[in-house]
């Protein structure tokens, strides 16, 4: 190994050993399988189930490079809610095979005409880490009343994940975009 290679390798190893950890007790890293992820999605006003809403789970991982670490996209899975607004998302194999420093998943729940989780939901309030683990929770999404509200809601979507992993989200998002007079995004745009 050349001196350059040795320096590079050493830096890499030091970097891995120094990856950040949360000081407040919440364990962000996956340490095995945390799923299946469960929940129920309902209309915040009518309390009726939202069937056909898409639930996207996104896994990121902390990659440590020489001198620098960065949180980057790792994987995504999606599932639709059933007639009762319920979903179960299995990811056993994915999580068991996930590389070191993979974070527990974050979730996006979207239905056309509604404000999406986690930015617009009305319940549950507060800390949402891990809420879909175990028996899960009921998520209430507000129906958006004006065109401007719907425009503001769709702008940040889709998230920066592989398009091939989220066909349902792209389809529903484009339904909403076309309904608002916007061009479609994703493969349809090409």
């Amino acid at each position, binding site marked *: 190994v050349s001196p*350059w290679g040795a*320096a*590079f390798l*050493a*830096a890499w190893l*030091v*970097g891995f*050993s*120094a990856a*950040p*950890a*949360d*000081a*407040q*007790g*919440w364990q*962000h890293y996956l340490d095995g399988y945390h799923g299946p992820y469960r929940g129920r999605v309902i209309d915040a006003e009518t309390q009726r189930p939202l069937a056909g809403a898409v639930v996207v789970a996104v896994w*990121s991982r902390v990659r*440590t*490079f*020489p*001198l*620098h*670490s*960065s*949180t*980057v996209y790792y994987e995504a899975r999606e599932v639709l809610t059933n007639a009762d607004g319920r979903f179960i998302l299995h990811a056993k194999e994915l999580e068991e095979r996930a590389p070191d420093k993979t*974070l527990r998943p*974050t979730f996006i729940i979207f239905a056309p005409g509604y404000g999406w989780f*986690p*930015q617009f939901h009305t319940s549950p*309030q*507060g*800390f*949402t*880490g891990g809420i879909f683990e175990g028996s899960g929770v009921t998520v209430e999404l507000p129906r958006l009343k004006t065109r401007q509200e719907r*425009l*503001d809601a769709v*702008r*940040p979507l889709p998230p*920066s994940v592989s398009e091939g992993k989220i066909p349902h989200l792209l389809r529903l998002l484009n339904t909403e*975009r076309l309904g608002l*007079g*916007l*061009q*479609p*995004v*994703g493969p349809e*745009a*090409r």
Partner: protein
Amino acid sequence: MKTIGSVPFRWSVVVPILTIVATGAIAQAYETPTHQAISERALIASSVHDVLRNALALEQGIDQVVAGATLLQWIRTGSLREDDHVSGTLLRFRYHFHNPLQPWDEAGLRYPEPYRGQQVATSSILWSQDPNQSWSWPKTRDHYREALTAKKKRDRDTALAKTFRGLGQVIHLIQDAASPAHTRNDPHAGYNYESLVLSVQSDEAAAFQRWLAVPVRPGDDWMWLRPHLLAPLPISRLIDTDRYERNNPWVSTEPPIGLAEYANANFFSEDRIWPNDPARSFPYPARSSVLVSNSQIRLRSGEWVTRQYYQKTADGDVGYRLATVGFLRDYFLRYNLDPARADSRPALDEIVYRDYAERLLPRAVGYSVAALDYFFRGQLDARLDGDGLVIVNDTPGEIMAGTFALYFDTSDDERVPLGEWTLTLPPKASSPRLTLPAPPKGKHPRSLDSFHLVFRGSLGAEGNAVAARRLTREPVRGVWQVSVLYNDRMWIDSTYSDAIVSPLAGLAECLLRRLRDLRRGPADPRKSWAHLSSPRRRPGAHGDRAPRGSL
């Protein structure tokens, strides 16, 4: 010797790698998802959407899809890619530091300490203006010019996507100046401010969105500060105005002030908390800047505890918890460990980081907004005066000096230059009447709203600025039909829901005259006219050829 920026390649790579082995340091910045959210919020809060819709007639503004993604997605992509490690420039993050208390050519990341050792990369300010790096402000300007003037639509779309990616990369650098570690030369390993921000973004979205909701903007005065010789573009002043000079921390809350100056003077980073070593210390926050106070803290377990903090009470910004008092000592006591082993040095905990984020993230958004608005600030107008075109500089307070070029799009989306003029126009000044040349042979405008005026040149203190206006203005409520017939051939025949009476009708007349003069001699007055009307009163169809615009 090969160089990266102004730093010799050998040192720029070897020194940090060797040093990391010795120190275990890892540079932390806002995590890329955080940068993306800040940039997204900044673009929405900026005037860019309106400029795209009104001046460039991109109907969907920042929601416009080009090259497969919306312009909003492209700016997010740029904010992500500025942290690339190996593609393009090796270890780009090295260029994301700026110490406002150093001369700018020495203000970059320096190992091992802020005031000694080797600078391993140039300051983020110089990096953002380096014409040799792929995603600098000057390169982004080039992409924007290409987006406005390239012949093929595909090339224009690609260049517009690159424009927004480039803007995402440039404002990433501004956002990093709102991270204290990046202004205090502190590459730090372990849980830190940026880790907390990402945690809140992931698991407390509502709280995170509240931090971004109300941008704190830098005002307007920064644009008029004297340019720095090493980085003459005024955007450098968003990071460093050179007003904070070690002993005057009170200026850090008085606009105009650079974001790096504000972060450096008012906040700690993990390894720069009142160190005894002068080579690692910064003058502020000082011990005179704080008072000790108790805070009731609710732990995630639900338990309430009292914790002592250094409350920032003087020397710049005030009213927040700057650091814990004896955090480790308290921990040692609570668990019956040997107090003698406790380090009484202040520490930064989650509560402190939240107070930091409340102040720094709104500024990260607001200063990014300022940069985006600055990029698109050029305003120009055009009107017809007889057979000529008159251009007006509508940019408040800034002189336009350069070339003004008029283009039109053909029916197959080819963009064709029609004329170009070199002018100097003070604010609100109009050009003399400019003669419109005829379109090139065989090239016809697709419609009357396909004309673009593009400026390239000096705009105020920016030497290579770009501004544009699509000549579709003065919306008139109602539906209008614009028709131009030349010797019995319908040259333009379009309907507009919010159409223009002037200058476009006049422009059509001018072009018709040019065609006549250039090609085919006098137009047959019975078979040639330019006309604007309601569709129900369409000339010819109802035999009521109107006198307006007829030849």
